Every structure is written in C-alpha cells, then in structure tokens.
C-alpha cells in the first residue's frame, strides 16, 4: 500500500507501473531470502536484485528474437538499432536538459528505435536496397543524431550518456526495471502468438508469401520487437554491446541443436548462463557488466562450436538417397 501511495504521488508513469513495482518488491524479498540461505554477498543489494532480473529477462528475449534474425541473415540489425536507441537516449537527455521535460530516456529510446526499425524496412521496400544498406544508413543517422544532440549541450549530457553507452548494473532503477518487464511481456507474448508465421517467413519468405502470409507485416513486427529488445537490454549491456546478446547465444545454439525448437531453448539457456556468470564475475571483478557478459557469451560460443564439431564427427551424418517413391499408396490430400 505504501508503494501505491508513493507511486500515486509521483509521476503518471509511476502510477501506471506500480503493480510491477509490487512484483519487483516480491522479487527483492525472494533474493534477500536466497542471500540469507546462501550467504552470497552480491544478493544483499537491491540494485543487484534489479540488475539480475533485468539480466534474466534479457537472457530470454534477446535470443528469442535473435534466433529469427540470425537465420534471416540480419544479425547486424541489432547493432543498427542500438545506435538509433543511443540517439533516442540523447533525445531524452536533451529534452530533459534543455526543455526540462522530465521524460525517461528509455522511453524516448523505445520510440526512436521503433521508428528507426520501421525506417529500415521502409528504405528497403522503397528503394529495393539490400537490407544491409538500409541498416547502414539508419545506423549512421542514429549515431550522428546522438552525437549532435550531445555536442549541443555537452555539460550534463556527456556525463549521463556514459551509462547508456557502456551499461551499468547499479543504475537500473525501479522505473527502468518495470519498463523492461513491460517490454519483456510484449516480446514474449508476440513471439508466442506469431511463432508459426515468424518461423515460416524466416525459413522461406517466398513460400510464406505464397501461403498467404503478409511477409511485409511480419518483417515489420520482427524489426520492432528487435528495437524493444535493444532498448531493454541497453541498461546493462550498453549501446555498444547490446547486439551481441541477439547474436552470440543464437550462433552457439545453432552449433549444437538438431531442431528449431531445440535451438530456441538452447539459445535461451546459453544466454542466461552468460548473463548470470557475467553479472557475477563483473560484480566481484569490478568490471563493466556488458563487456564481461559478452566475453562469457563468446567463450560459451567457442565451447558450443567444439561440441558441435564433435557431435558431427561422432554422429552418423551420411545420407542415403531413397530409391523408388510413389504417391499411389499414401495421398495426404485425401484427408
């Protein structure tokens, strides 16, 4: 109840997010209990509780979207959108610094990144350019806009921007953690509902179009979800490294998985492993979390490559052709 009162007395955003603040309190209680049982020092701080929750969410949503991106050969789109998210943060900080609007830089990052995601698709469709061309244009524009806004008001902006560039465990606020939970829910629910369609469009775009799917719409959904992941993961990973979580665990999972369903599951497991190990190591080593998480993820990827090679060498990879085939005995169209 006290949380509700505090939320109602503060910003409208807090009033909307207060049920999630309650959830975060429950999470904190749980981790305090775990800290009591295990004696783990890093679990004795509230900021670490929020950082771990955000990390766990990133570990699910990044590979979930990354799996579709990587196999569509759009691995670098995360990088492009991260640079536009940087511009979005700069817009937020600029509005706060110059116009004293008091908006969350994460929300402006969400808006700018989603618009940029649509712009990437729009450029590709309107100009018949390859996706990497439109990504490069949007990436450069985003970074240019960000640097220009920072240079206009370098004082407060330059200081504030560092945490977004490199990520920071200790600056994950209640508000940002709650916003991330919203993004997480949107992403997971959307992927769960449209999994069939996203898979079909990813695997065979023309066949998907022939089967009646609106490929353009699903492409737009995919890039907008990517924008949400990028902004969500930016808090801990930082703009520069955020794209790694979309790609590295998925690349590792592809080495050891036999099916698409398995690769989704394995990529999430690998990402969670990288996030939890990375947060732990960065806490005790006093290093930047984003960098450590990516290094752990790359180490896991290397192990996955070796395991994949061993699997291939040990397994029976020979494929015998089938001889005579006839449709006379079995006609699935008669069902």
């Amino acid at each position, binding site marked *: 109840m006290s949380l509700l009162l505090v939320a109602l007395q503060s910003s409208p955003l807090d009033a909307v997010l207060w049920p999630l603040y309650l959830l975060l309190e429950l999470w904190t209680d749980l981790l305090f209990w775990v800290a009591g049982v295990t004696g783990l020092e890093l679990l004795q701080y509230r900021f670490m509780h929020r950082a771990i929750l955000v990390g766990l969410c990133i570990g699910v949503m990044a590979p979930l979207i990354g799996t579709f991106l*990587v*196999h*569509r*050969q759009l691995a670098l789109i995360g990088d492009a959108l991260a640079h536009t998210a940087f511009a979005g943060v700069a817009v937020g900080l600029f509005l706060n610094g110059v116009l004293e609007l008091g908006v969350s830089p994460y929300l402006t990052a969400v808006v700018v990144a989603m618009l940029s995601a649509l712009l990437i698709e729009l450029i590709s469709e309107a100009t018949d350019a390859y996706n990497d061309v439109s990504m490069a244009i949007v990436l450069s524009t985003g970074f240019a806009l960000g640097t220009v806004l920072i240079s206009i008001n370098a004082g407060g902006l330059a200081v504030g921007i560092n945490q977004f560039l490199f990520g920071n465990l200790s600056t994950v606020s209640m508000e940002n953690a709650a916003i991330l939970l919203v993004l997480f829910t949107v992403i997971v629910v959307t992927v769960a*509902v*449209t999994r*069939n*369609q996203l*898979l*079909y469009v*990813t*695997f*065979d*775009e*023309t*066949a998907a*179009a*022939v*089967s*009646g*799917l609106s490929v353009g719409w699903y492409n737009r959904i995919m890039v907008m979800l990517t924008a949400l992941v990028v902004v969500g993961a930016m808090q801990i990973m930082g703009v520069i490294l955020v794209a790694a979580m979309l790609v590295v665990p998925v690349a590792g*999972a*592809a080495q050891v*998985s*036999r*099916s*698409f*369903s*398995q*690769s989704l599951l394995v990529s999430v497991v690998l990402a969670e492993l990288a996030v939890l190990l990375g947060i732990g190591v960065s806490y005790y080593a006093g290093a930047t979390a984003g960098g450590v998480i990516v290094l752990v993820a790359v180490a896991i990827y290397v192990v996955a490559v070796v395991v994949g090679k061993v699997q291939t060498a040990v397994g029976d*990879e020979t*494929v015998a*052709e*089938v*001889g*005579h*085939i*006839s*449709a*006379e005995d*079995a*006609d*699935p*169209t*008669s*069902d």
Partner: protein
Amino acid sequence: MTNDGPVAELDGVSFGYTATPVVEDVSLRIDPGEYVAVVGPNGSGKSTLMRLLLGLVRPDSGQARLFGEPAHRFDDGARIGYVAQEASASKEMPITVREVVKMGRFPHVGFGRLSRDDARIVDRALETVGMAAFADRRVTQLSGGQRQRTFIARALASEADLLVLDEPTVGVDAESVAAFYDLLDSLHDTGITILLIEHDLRAVTDHAERVVCLNREVYFDGPTAAFVESDALARAFGTAMAVGGDAG
C-alpha cells in the same frame, strides 16, 4: 477443394520491373489436373510469370487470376504448394525435415497450434515422398534431392490443389532428379495440378503433358508431343536448338 474453372489464368498480362517489359501480352490458362511446364532461356520471364500467377507481383496490364480470384487478392494460400531451388534462410539454420513439413499446416491453423490430425497429415506427407525415415534430421544434412522432396511434402501437408515448382532440380544429381520426377508423376496421378518452371528440357518432355515456351512472349503453348515437333524452341532461343539438353 474442387474447382470447376481454371486453377490459374493470365489474360493479356504484361509486366516489367523497369520500362522494358519482362513478359508481354501473355495469356495462359491452367485447368485442374494439368501438368504444365514453362520453358525458356535465361531471362525469358519464366520466374516472373510464376510470380504473376501466384499474385506476388501485380501485372502492369491484363489480369492474373488464381482459382477465379484476382491473384494478388487470393488469400487461401493452403491451396498452393510452392517449391523453389532453395529456401531463403541461412544454410546453418537448425531445422528438421518434420518442422519444415509442418509449415504446410500453418495456413490451416493460423495463430493456433497443430492438432493430432495435423500431425497425422504431416506424417503421411513425409511417407508419401519417402522422407519419413529422415523426419528428425536437420535439413542442412540432406542431399539436394531429399531437400526438394521435403519441400514437396510441405506442399502436400498443406493439401494443395496446385503445386508450383521453380527450377526445383538445380544442383540435384541425375539419379535424384529421376526419382524426383517419378514422384511428381505419382502426385499428378492423384489429381494435383502441377506448374513446373524448368530448364531441363529432357525432364519436361519426359514428364509434362503440356509445354509453354516463353521468351517475354509465348512462343508455344500446347501438348508436349507437338512442342517436340515444333520449331518454337529455336525461335524462342533465337538459335538452332532441339529438345534433348538444358534450356537454361
């Protein structure tokens, strides 16, 4: 799923990606149960013709119809099975044969999940094309011929009335090509309409009932036997050429 009228129809269709038309004033009608092959030199507009018929591009002039509806508005995608040379996904994508064939059921279930009946249809499609033993194998581990059979199984799983194949045997070894066309013959015997875009003239004349020879415009449209006797190929290619080799 029967259709009394034509399965697919082009009526005076012209289309170009630029000002120069790729296909010009093409009229074509494919009736239920036909086995039609489209041949022509590289850049003759074969694949564009297919895209027009499937509603993937709209004609600059003329009309394209699928099952009686304007092709670009046709939304019963389950009635069409599509097989290309390759899927668009990265070659490393970990996906099994069964997962690919299940895609054939997606137009039927939409945002839902596949039922036991759907699973049975998938199993039967796998058996029909002789891929049941490879159902849990990664598609990347298959030979070219097996991959194409997998795509045909996907079309069968969708219970398609029209099977469209765009140069399906490119890069497939000769023995597998023969088995592949035997499979198409078997499927055609069950009543499926087949539209084949093909560069291999021997395969076309051995298996298709009707040939459309295209080079921007239609040079020949008729029974395969008449095509073999005609000079359409030489006129379409602009050079002396006889059936017995590759056209592409």
